[in-house]
């Protein structure tokens, strides 16, 4: 329903007349062989996203199991997947909540985890800034690690495609449906996953796959090491304050290294 509404709306935006037919919409695109229709671009996003579901499906199941095990109700666990819609932050939220962390530290830690989305937002901004408000709201809500990763690639390959945002709609929506479904399955079927499989290990593995290739210079290495050391030695601190300290310390160490190197190379 939602997709239909957005697709219809898009066709009317392409031309000035609101009674434009689908044939007219296709004629617009016939002018240029390179251009795909909105629907093609949508399915392209769905297709590009689908391999990543191999990691998302177990992650969603693990969160469903973990949420209930942390003392959240089934309803809270399931709704968190649509209210927050962020794997790392939801897992952290559940873990902190279970260990009795004060609400301010739960909110603070989850927010610092999600700060990386500002980067994604900045990165896609030039591709989405011209869109109507409701489009930007929907696409911002769907802007997860995985959706960003596959759609920014497409945006950069075809920056002039007027319907490129449908790619992010497709990749984001597939991920959203998958995340909601697997969370619910995890909540209700969770007890049947044998703990000896250690499926919770999928969470750090997913992050290793993001972090390892992202380390490209000395400043990145310093950020990584500093964060790791603080995370290990800060475990004894109250309120799980080590997360905020490790993340903040890592960012500061990376920034300081970058600026120290920069100054040295200029002189």
């Amino acid at each position, binding site marked *: 329903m939602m997709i239909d509404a957005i697709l219809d709306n898009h066709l009317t935006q392409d031309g000035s007349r609101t009674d434009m037919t689908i044939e007219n919409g296709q004629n617009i695109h016939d002018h240029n062989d390179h251009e795909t229709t909105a629907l093609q671009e949508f399915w392209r996003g769905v297709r590009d996203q689908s*391999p*990543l579901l191999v990691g998302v499906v177990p992650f969603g199941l693990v969160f469903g199991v973990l949420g209930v095990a942390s003392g959240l109700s089934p309803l*809270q666990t399931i709704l968190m997947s649509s209210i*927050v819609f*962020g794997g*790392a*932050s939801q897992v*952290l*939220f559940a873990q902190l*909540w279970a260990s009795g962390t004060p*609400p301010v530290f*739960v*909110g603070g830690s*989850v*927010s*610092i*985890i*999600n*700060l*990386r*989305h*500002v*980067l*994604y*937002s*900045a990165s*896609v*901004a030039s591709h989405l800034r011209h869109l109507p408000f409701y489009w930007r709201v929907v696409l*911002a*809500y769907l*802007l997860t690690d995985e959706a960003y990763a596959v759609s920014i690639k497409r945006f950069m390959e075809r920056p002039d495609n007027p319907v490129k945002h449908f790619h992010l709609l497709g990749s984001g929506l597939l991920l959203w449906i998958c995340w909601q479904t697997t969370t619910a399955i995890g909540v209700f079927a969770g007890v049947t996953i044998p703990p000896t499989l250690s499926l919770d*290990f999928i969470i*750090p*593995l*997913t*992050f*290793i*796959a*993001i*972090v*390892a*290739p992202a*380390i490209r210079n000395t*400043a990145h290495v310093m*950020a*990584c090491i*500093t*964060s*790791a050391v*603080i*995370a290990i030695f800060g475990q004894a601190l109250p309120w799980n304050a*080590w*997360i905020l300290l*490790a*993340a903040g310390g*890592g*960012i500061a*160490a*990376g*920034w300081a290294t970058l600026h120290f190197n920069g100054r040295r190379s200029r002189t």
Partner: protein
Amino acid sequence: MIWIIMIVTGLLTFWMRFVMFSGLTPRTLPRSLEDALDFVPIAVLTAIIVPAVVFTDGNTLAIADNTRLPAAIIATVVALLTRSVVMTIIAGLMALWTLPFIGF
């Protein structure tokens, strides 16, 4: 209470995804802030990865007799070589499941 934190967290998360094309912010960030943001994913995710690997049940630091450590190292190598989330998860889980049988 939990509902309030959850909704506030959700709104904050949405805002971080929306802020740069909300039309309310300048088109470019200050240079030093942009530099700092570059380290956010590495610093933040490392802080989650490391304790999940080296602290086993009961919050005790485990270096020896901890299969997660070699499995995480193998996963890191695979991540660097393949840059694939799928391959990294497969390699890490395979290592975790099989290493105990070969003496780890």
